[in-house]
């Protein structure tokens, strides 16, 4: 029996009956044991079935750019047997009672080992013999940029007690309006107007967030409806602006933001140059995640925001003005969504297409729930998604074949979604949302 909903403020009946407690305990044991058993099973299959049948040529992981890269060479058979053995071990540890902590870490390690495992098997099955791991990591980080930013938007809104499913619309709107301003002001020679446009994109995000805030806080309409309104509105508005304003300017392509190399960090041997050289908005994402954590969990204002999301009436008795705090938090989230929008139309590429965010906002929402409403957790969720997308396109590039059957590219494209689905369903416990989320607040008189 799972627990539905947050505890009610008044307990009319005992929260957990004996029966229910038993059920829950069984479930909790069950999840760990089931995951462990799955690992053990996979390990046995790997050792018994996969390893003997795999080609025995030497493969390698590269860590640097092509001319004379640092490589790690191995035989797929050895690699698969080692990983399989670790899986079996994890399985054994997981079913032994009283080893909860050990089992937890074993499962984490095993989960991480799936990455080299997938790469090894793919390399063995493809015609190529080497793949660059650092690049893969870099692509993952890059692709997780808008997801992580969107998740931070969601965090600010939800911790203040406002549900935001309009992240998608905020991103799309700011991507469109920002690019439109760039196209109108556009002087393709300097980057000054580009940065002005990025600023405008952020303000657009904030404006849409302000609209969301007014609807949810002032007019107290259903917050999910307000989010859908934002999404629809942004979709219509950007399509309208694209065909009525951007296309008539004849401005086809401007510049994207210039890649920067972080001082010091980019000089780290082997990985530094790849990982620490990139677009400014990409690096801004790290800063935003860090600042979100710092401000939300380590400052007085952050505590106030969270108290508004947990129990606004209690917050009010402490002298916190709930409504202004909610406005501030939602609009701050809007600025962050605007940054994500700018990434789409001015950093990843220069240009705007209809619906170009392509449900990244919803995936950001998923990453936020995945991260259990914590900044680092949400960032992890974004990374997982970015990584599986990068992995998908990498495997597609390697061209994996089982005998005659080439694995279709559609499979690799759906890989990020499959992995997220499995992780969410299998490995994730129950998440607890801010308690007062979705409830409009009327100050007591």
């Amino acid at each position: 029996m799972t627990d539905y909903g947050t505890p009610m403020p008044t307990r009319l009946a005992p929260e957990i009956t004996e029966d229910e407690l038993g059920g829950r305990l069984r479930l909790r044991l069950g999840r760990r044991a089931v995951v462990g058993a799955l690992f053990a099973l996979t390990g046995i299959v790997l050792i018994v079935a996969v390893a003997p049948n795999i080609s025995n040529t030497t493969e390698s992981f590269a860590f640097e750019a092509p001319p004379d890269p640092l490589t790690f060479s191995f035989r797929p058979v050895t690699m698969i047997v080692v990983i399989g053995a670790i899986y079996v071990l994890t399985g054994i540890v997981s079913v032994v009672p009283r080893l909860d902590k050990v089992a937890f870490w074993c499962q984490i390690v095993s989960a991480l080992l799936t990455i080299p495992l997938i790469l090894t098997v793919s390399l063995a099955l493809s015609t190529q013999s080497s793949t660059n791991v650092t690049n893969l990591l870099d692509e993952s980080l890059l692709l997780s940029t808008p997801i992580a930013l969107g998740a931070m938007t969601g965090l600010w809104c939800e911790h203040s007690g406002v549900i935001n499913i309009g992240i998608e619309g905020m991103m799309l709107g700011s991507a469109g309006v920002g690019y439109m301003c760039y196209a109108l002001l556009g002087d393709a020679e300097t980057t000054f107007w580009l940065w002005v446009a990025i600023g405008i994109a952020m303000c657009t995000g904030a404006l849409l967030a302000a609209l969301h805030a007014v609807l949810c806080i002032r007019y107290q309409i259903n917050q999910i409806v307000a989010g859908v309104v934002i999404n629809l509105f942004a979709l219509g508005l950007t399509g309208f602006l694209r065909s009525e304003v951007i296309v008539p300017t004849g401005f086809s392509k401007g510049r994207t933001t210039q890649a920067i190399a972080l001082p010091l960090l980019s000089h780290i041997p082997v990985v530094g140059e790849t990982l620490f050289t990139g677009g400014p908005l990409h690096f801004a994402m790290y800063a935003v995640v860090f600042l979100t954590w710092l401000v939300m969990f380590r400052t007085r204002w952050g505590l106030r925001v969270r108290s508004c999301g947990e129990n606004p009436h209690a917050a009010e008795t402490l002298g916190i003005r709930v409504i202004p705090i909610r406005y501030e938090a939602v609009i701050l989230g809007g600025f962050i969504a605007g940054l994500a929008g700018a990434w789409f139309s001015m950093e990843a590429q220069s240009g705007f297409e209809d619906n170009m965010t392509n449900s990244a906002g919803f995936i950001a929402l998923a990453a936020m729930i995945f991260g259990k409403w914590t900044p680092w957790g949400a960032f992890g969720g974004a990374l997982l998604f970015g990584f599986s997308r990068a992995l998908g396109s990498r495997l597609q590039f390697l061209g994996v074949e089982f005998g005659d059957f080439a694995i279709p590219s559609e499979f690799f494209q759906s890989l990020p979604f499959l992995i997220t689905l499995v992780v969410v369903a299998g490995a994730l416990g129950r998440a607890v949302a801010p308690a007062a989320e979705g409830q409009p607040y009327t100050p007591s008189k």
Partner: protein
Amino acid sequence: MADAAHPSPRTDIIGWIRSWWSLQPVLVPFYALVLAFVVGGVLIAMIGVNPFEAYWALLRGAFGSWDRLAGSIARSVPFVGSALALAFAFRAGLFNIGAEGQLLVGGIAAAWVGTWSFMYDTPGIVAVPLVLLAGFVGGALWGGVPGVLRAKTGAHEVITTIMLNSIALFMTRWLINSKDPLVLRDPGASVPRTKAISPTARLGQLVDSDPPLTTAVFIMIALCIIVWYVLRRTTFGFETITVGTNPHAAHYAGISVERIIILAMTLAGSFAGLAAACEVAGNSYFFQPGTFAFIGFDGIAIALLARANPLAILPAAFLWGALLKGAPLMQQEADVSIDVVRIIQALVLLFVAADAIVRFIFRIKGGDEHHIATTATGWSST
């Protein structure tokens, strides 16, 4: 979760009578529509087009002739199914944004069954229900997965349905694209799509409009009435609404919350699947993922516009269909981008939801009866 400030049952009834007396349920949406068109008109005027000219073209595009009216109705048919998919799950406290994927799977299941070789010799009375059933089952499967995951592992349906949407898109794309193992692709067609379904498995055409008005419209109306009846008058409907309102209370009242969650999601998916099957059997006759673009997305808006009331979905979906049907003529005659319609749709939803704005502008009294709808069911019940 329920707010503390619920009106007492007595004042609720008085408010209801009063609101009925002053025609409020009709007035507010009507004024919301007017307001949305006014704001949209300002936008059109800003690009230098006479808004009256544009709206006249839009109106004629949607209702200008019997054919166009029939086309508007036909256009709104799939939206009914996708909106019901959201509305029904919404009543059970679940936010099903997976109609997009459920439509795709239902559609491809219908197309697959419709192209079985023996179907070409099967009379319509068997073939049509088979195709519809296939869509129903396909949608149910795709909706049931997030339901089971939610009930058994606590995985939130918002995440799982989004993921399943994309998986469905890529899966169906592969099924109809793949040439090497030829799965469902029609080898003779220049674009990737399935073969046309058996002529006997097609729905009867009522009006030869664009898109054609078929008997699917009756199926969808019947479906709305059935869902309304089930929610209002049956034990299962009562249990569903109880779980949606307060899962704790439902649990202590002896309702199996898990069972309701799984059933609600499965049924919600099947409504979307049925709509897709109607689209395949009535309109396109083959499966192509592009047919279903945005139908699931718009279904969310339509269901919310109708406040998750199955009967109110019918007019809401009709509004959507009419706007989309009229838009091309507006673009052609007044040179206004089709996207204006999307903005108007967003504004209609906005003003219907934020009725305080409408009441303020048009000086309509009352308006405290809608507190029930203001509290969103968040993610909190994970």
